[in-house]
């Protein structure tokens, strides 16, 4: 897309007070830009893209200074420089070096225009530095008018662009996420120009890069969305529901296109044609030419919008310098997760090595105080290093919560309900992998809360509640866990309905006595949905059991508290990281296995009268009145035990939901925290084993997967003599 966005800048001069500081900030960013340009190479696309982005920010900054004499010329120069860079990138100029020099010249012009305006600021007049007008850009820029009727032909991707493409998809996603968040803000505060600018910038950046990579559909969409937003920026279009909806649709479509682009990049083909796109482009165009319909009083005639122009000039003027300082302040770098993982591995190894040194020291060099002191000091540093390394994988949960904002908004629209989402504890950090894994369950739960929990407005009012329902998402740390609460002030769970349904579906027997908590937990059963009718939002009874499975797969658990008529709170407790678990080390023969503490109820040494058999082979242990099957770990795993006699060993009572069983081991060696490692691709999945852990002596011990183990035992029980 070579069409620049601000060709017809036709700003009216307004009599706002010029701000010297803003001007100085502009001048210093111009200086930085000049320095970058001097070092730039026409072949170096990423740095050109960066210059382009800076120019864009600059021209936005200059625009906010439009009250100034000289600013108009400076803005024109900036626009021309932008165009030139686009041409260089698209290889549409003959002599790229000369063109770059021209850009530098334009930027110099821009600077002198601004400087002259700064000196003239004291006496605002019509004294324009008009004739320092910069040289004309090549004529090729006459933008072909944008014909959305034609299908947009996609060329296959240039293999040389592939690294750029993967960078682009990643960046585009984060831009789209920002745009979405800002858009939702905009919906609540329609005069929030900062949000408009942020969304505009997101589309603009995407457009720029899509241009380099020749992604036509993405470019066309970004361009159309950007043009619409530009009207809003120029106060020629009011923010209304129609606009928010069409931009949201554009964001969704863009996500699709970016995903398609990623796939196309991998398969080295052109992006598939999106059939919905032309219609969307048309809607975008219509939305742009439709200001009068839903007009907010001051919107149609921008020429008279003097007060509006002044009060939006202030925020934009401020926002662009702060945006750039914020970028500097954060100063983050991207590191691939595999590198991070290997760092964490190395630190883990260091901790183990340190533990060995410690052990040796204790036995070999008692009395050497210097050595002891130094080794202790090293140990302290190693521990701190480990904490630091683990913390590097931590990300705030806020991003995930933010996605729910969009979900709740869409659901409320679809269901005809009024729902507010309140988020707290967004800064709570947890392991990146946990964040990824908890996403789907959270969507399910929020969806359920909106669909089943919150009542329609009329029912709410009838029940004496405010018409607008409330869903609260809250996260906090608690005792080495992260706790996520999803609360709603809706109708709450109905014990009777759940029980009735469960009995009807044969999940429980009518005669069974269940506690309240047990009844509530029934909603996690597959096939139990108490929603009166199935909607396309939820009610098929598949959601909640998946939620529970996912959460349990993360070694977490979920609890419900609810008051009928007042709402429910679902509390999810998850370990902070998937990387570490608490386990009991058990020995069977020479082998040591780790049993996750969360699956263990207790361990006992059975007395002979606790043991019994069925048909002389199914072994059972009677523990406090309940009869549990006994499985011998050594038989399941085919290893040699130290002793076969249960009364000489230990029986560990393990639990997988409602299923309980006894595992016979030789002895328990102790409890410890271990880092979970995969067994490597060479081995793949092994039933009954969830991974490996490196013990203090450097050997690998297997972590048992209790549910898998019980399945294995159940399958084996029949065919064992």
């Amino acid at each position: 897309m070579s069409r620049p966005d601000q060709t017809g800048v036709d700003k009216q001069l307004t009599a706002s007070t010029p701000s010297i500081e803003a001007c100085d900030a502009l001048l210093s960013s111009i200086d930085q830009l000049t320095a970058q340009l001097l070092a730039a190479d026409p072949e170096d696309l990423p740095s050109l893209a960066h210059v382009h982005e800076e120019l864009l920010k600059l021209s936005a900054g200059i625009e906010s200074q439009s009250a100034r004499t000289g600013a108009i010329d400076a803005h024109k120069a900036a626009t021309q420089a932008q165009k030139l860079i686009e041409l260089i990138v698209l290889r549409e100029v003959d002599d790229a070096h000369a063109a770059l020099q021209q850009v530098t010249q334009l930027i110099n012009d821009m600077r002198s225009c601004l400087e002259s305006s700064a000196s003239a600021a004291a006496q605002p007049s019509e004294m324009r530095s008009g004739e320092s007008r910069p040289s004309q850009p090549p004529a090729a820029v006459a933008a072909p008018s944008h014909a959305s009727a034609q299908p947009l032909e996609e060329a296959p991707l240039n293999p040389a662009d592939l690294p750029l493409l993967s960078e682009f998809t990643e960046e585009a996603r984060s831009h789209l996420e920002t745009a979405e968040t800002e858009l939702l803000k905009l919906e609540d505060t329609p005069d929030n120009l900062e949000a408009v600018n942020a969304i505009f910038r997101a589309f603009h950046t995407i457009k720029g890069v899509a241009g380099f990579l020749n992604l036509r559909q993405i470019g066309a969409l970004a361009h159309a969305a950007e043009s619409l937003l530009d009207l809003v920026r120029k106060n020629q279009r009011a923010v209304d529901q129609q606009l928010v909806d069409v931009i949201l649709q554009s964001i969704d479509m863009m996500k699709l296109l970016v995903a398609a682009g990623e796939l196309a990049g991998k398969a080295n083909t052109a992006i598939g044609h999106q059939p919905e796109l032309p219609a969307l482009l048309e809607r975008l165009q219509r939305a742009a030419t439709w200001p009068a319909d839903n007009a907010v009083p001051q919107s149609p005639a921008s020429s008279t919008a003097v007060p509006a122009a002044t009060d939006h000039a202030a925020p934009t003027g401020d926002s662009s310098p702060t945006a750039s300082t914020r970028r500097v302040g954060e100063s983050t770098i991207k590191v691939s997760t595999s590198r991070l993982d290997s760092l964490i591995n190395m630190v883990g190894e260091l901790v183990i090595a340190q533990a060995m040194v410690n052990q040796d020291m204790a036995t070999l060099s008692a009395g050497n105080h210097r050595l002891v002191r130094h080794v202790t000091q090293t140990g302290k540093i190693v521990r701190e290093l480990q904490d630091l390394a683990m913390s590097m994988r931590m990300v705030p949960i806020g991003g995930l919560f933010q996605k729910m904002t969009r979900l709740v908004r869409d659901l409320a629209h679809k269901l005809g309900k009024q729902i507010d989402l309140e988020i707290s504890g967004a800064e709570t950090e947890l392991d990146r992998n946990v964040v990824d894994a908890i996403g789907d369950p959270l969507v399910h739960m929020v969806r359920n809360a909106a669909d089943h929990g919150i009542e329609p407005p009329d029912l709410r009012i009838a029940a004496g509640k405010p018409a607008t329902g409330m869903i609260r998402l809250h996260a906090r740390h608690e005792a080495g866990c992260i706790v996520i609460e999803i609360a709603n002030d809706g109708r709450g769970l109905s014990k009777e309905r759940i029980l009735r349904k469960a009995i009807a579906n044969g999940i429980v027997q009518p005669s069974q006595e269940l506690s309240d908590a047990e009844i509530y937990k029934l909603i996690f059963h597959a096939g139990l949905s108490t929603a009166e009718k199935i909607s396309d939002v939820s009610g098929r009874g598949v959601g909640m059991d998946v939620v529970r499975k996912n959460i349990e797969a993360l070694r977490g658990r979920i609890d419900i508290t609810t008051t009928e008529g007042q709402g429910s709170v679902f509390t999810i407790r998850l370990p902070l990281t998937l990387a570490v678990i608490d386990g009991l080390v058990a020995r069977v023969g020479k082998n040591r296995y780790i049993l996750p503490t969360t699956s263990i109820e207790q361990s006992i040494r059975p007395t002979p009268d606790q043991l019994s058999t069925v048909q002389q082979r199914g072994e059972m242990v009677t523990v406090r009145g309940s009869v549990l099957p006994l499985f011998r770990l050594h038989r399941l795993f085919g290893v040699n035990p130290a002793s076969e006699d249960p009364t000489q060993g230990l029986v560990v009572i393990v639990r997988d939901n409602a299923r309980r069983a006894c595992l016979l081991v030789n002895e328990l060696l102790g409890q410890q925290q271990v880092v979970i490692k995969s067994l490597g691709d060479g081995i793949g999945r092994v039933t009954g084993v969830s991974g490996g852990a490196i013990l203090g002596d450097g050997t690998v011990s297997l972590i048992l997967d209790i549910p898998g183990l019980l399945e294995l035992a159940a399958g084996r029980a029949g065919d064992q003599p």
Partner: protein
Amino acid sequence: MSTEATAAPLRSARGGKYLTFALGHEEYGLEILKVREIIGSMEITAVPRTPRHVKGVINLRGQVISVIDLRSRFAMEPAEQTDETCIIVVETSVDGRTHNTGIIVDRVKEVLDISQEQIEDAPSFGDSVSSNFILGMGKVGESVKILLDIDRVLDGPDALTPTAEAA
């Protein structure tokens, strides 16, 4: 098992450096680029319910990697562990992800430069010996080194030995 078609692309560039090792009296070669390191034998944690040639897992500086007994993979007689027994860690890539696997060999010999001209295709042995994991036969002086396509040895679609569960 016909491997003519699939082995063809490898044939053009088989010359290069090979790490040679011994299993009994036979000598084998591994492309040096696939070899990550050689470590002495160490305590291996057995993993239940895996094929018999999978000896288990070891801790390679914080990374858990699986270890394959090459003798057992090739259905050869097991050998006594000696001071020379060692584990060659090889790096293979599956679906673009690289991973390390240890292979147990009787003894490591040397690194040899074997040129294209010295390498011949593996002869057909009939049904008794599977040859689809052999890159070629390297003739060095009087001896013949069996050059292994280690990716196929580790991930070969056809099991070379019956698994423990079938046994």
